[in-house]
């Protein structure tokens, strides 16, 4: 063990102090009294923090002043489903982001004009995110939506074609929302506005209430309806917020912190630097948060970008924590579709725990039963219906 004596001292001293206090007070964490499954206060608080009832109203999107404009959203919705916006007239956003499949698809890599280099992401609760794509290379939702349009393996068109298509098929709604003529405006402006309309639509895709949410609500209201979850599911939940430490990254009502982490997903020989390669994209894009077409106030807004830690080395091979809402309904998993089942995902977590592959994943020794129970719990994060608020 090598350590600078000073830093060791700094770390040990407060520990000693608190240790002696602990000895004196000897105060084991108390279980919340009125609580049938005797959750500790900490567990109880974490469970509540994951519940949909804690989901705040959609935060504003300062870079897109049409973000909450209903006419922009309905224009965006039409374009989202319009396959004319593609090189072969067959691919729309909805081809990959399927409403009947949790707004993703069942493939290891998205399939448009060609094969995308990563798995399609579920696009539920996007208004609550700061970074977009697996590597977060887009700093706003509207600039994200422009990516697939010009990506040769997704829609395979370009901004000029977007302008023509909007002028030909959506001139009137465009005029109504953006108070301008799509035919005469600069091509980049029409392109950016199209993105803003798409973003306004995507923001309306919200998560559904699940069994877990009902359970959390029941706990809070003291209704004793704890049979909403089975014993295995309850045990899985306890592991999730406790020993297994899943809540470190999969936290908040969307079950994601929206940040980038090593989770030890095998790359099958194809190196993908993930977040580590995204910082230059953030700087070069003309449609960025601080760019010409953004509506943000460059002084007041965007602190998440201004103060971003851009350490390429530290973030090499990290990917955005995905939401776990609806997860059991939509295999495969991970940025590269490496796993076809939740059991495989969980086995891998156990295998990589504490290793350099996944330096932030550690969760004691998970037993076989723990994995089964965790999987049971993940199943409670799906609603039983396919009709999303949309």
């Amino acid at each position, binding site marked *: 063990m090598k350590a600078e004596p000073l830093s060791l001292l700094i770390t040990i001293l407060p520990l000693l102090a608190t240790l002696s206090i602990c*000895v004196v007070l000897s105060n084991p*964490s108390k279980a919340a009294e009125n609580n049938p499954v005797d959750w500790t206060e900490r567990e109880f608080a974490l469970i509540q923090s994951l519940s949909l009832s804690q989901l705040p109203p959609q935060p504003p999107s300062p870079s897109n002043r049409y973000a909450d404009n209903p006419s922009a959203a309905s224009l965006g919705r039409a374009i989202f489903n319009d396959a004319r916006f593609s090189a072969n007239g067959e691919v729309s956003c909805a081809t990959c982001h399927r409403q009947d499949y949790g707004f993703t698809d069942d493939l290891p890599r998205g399939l448009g004009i060609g094969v995308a280099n990563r798995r399609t992401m579920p696009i539920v609760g996007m208004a*609550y995110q700061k970074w977009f794509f697996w590597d977060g290379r887009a700093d706003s939702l509207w600039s994200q939506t422009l990516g697939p349009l010009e990506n040769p393996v997704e829609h395979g068109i370009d901004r000029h074609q977007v302008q023509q298509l909007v002028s030909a098929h959506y001139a009137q709604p465009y005029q109504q929302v953006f108070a301008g003529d799509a035919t005469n405006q600069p091509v980049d402006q029409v392109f950016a506005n199209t993105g803003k309309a798409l973003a306004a639509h995507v923001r309306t895709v919200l998560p559904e209430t699940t069994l877990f949410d009902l359970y959390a609500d029941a706990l809070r209201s003291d209704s004793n309806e704890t049979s909403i979850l089975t014993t295995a599911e309850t045990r899985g939940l306890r592991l999730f917020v406790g020993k297994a430490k899943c809540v470190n990254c999969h936290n908040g009502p969307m079950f994601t912190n929206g940040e980038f982490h090593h989770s030890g997903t095998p790359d099958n020989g194809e190196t993908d630097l993930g977040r580590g390669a995204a910082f230059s994209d953030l700087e070069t894009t003309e449609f960025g948060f601080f760019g010409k077409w953004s509506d943000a106030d460059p002084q007041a807004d965007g602190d998440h970008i201004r103060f971003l830690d851009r350490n390429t080395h530290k973030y090499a091979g990290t990917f955005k924590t995905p939401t776990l809402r609806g997860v059991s309904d939509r295999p495969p998993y991970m940025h590269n579709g490496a796993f076809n089942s939740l059991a495989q995902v969980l086995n891998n977590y156990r295998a990589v725990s504490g290793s350099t592959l996944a330096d932030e994943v550690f969760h004691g020794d998970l037993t076989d039963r723990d994995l089964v129970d965790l999987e049971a719990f993940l199943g409670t994060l799906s609603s039983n219906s396919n009709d999303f608020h949309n």
Partner: protein
Amino acid sequence: MHWLLLLLLSIFVLPDTAGAMDAIGKVRRERPEVLDTSATVATRYGTLQASYETDFLEVPLNGVHSWRLSLQDKQGQPVTGADIVLTADMPEHLHGMTTTPQVQDTQTPGLYLVRGMNFHMPGYWEVTLDISEAGSRHLLRFNLIVGENQRGPDRKGADES
């Protein structure tokens, strides 16, 4: 008597039980059962006192936000012109924030603005201030438990896309 023994014992045993050590010599530490999480801390002899405020009831989880940081000397006078380096870490993980917050001076003497704070995991955080002023240097540390309040995440003013 027996707690003295424990204290002695802990001096020798702790470095090992405290857990793994990473390459640069940081020690992974579990959250102590009792933690002083007050928003005002002082150096041992009270030479320097620091406190912070946010716009929120609780420090937000996953929300980029600012801190208003006040520095006072022993006499309660504002400490101006200090050079402050702030770092935030999770002792249980050896990982810090995904942002690099910066400390700025403000118009008010002794008041500093920290922009770019973002606690992206719930639990035990340490925010350390390395403060240089008038030829002396001090380390001050705030302990925080983030995201474990029952009210759930606040949102006002959190930074979004």
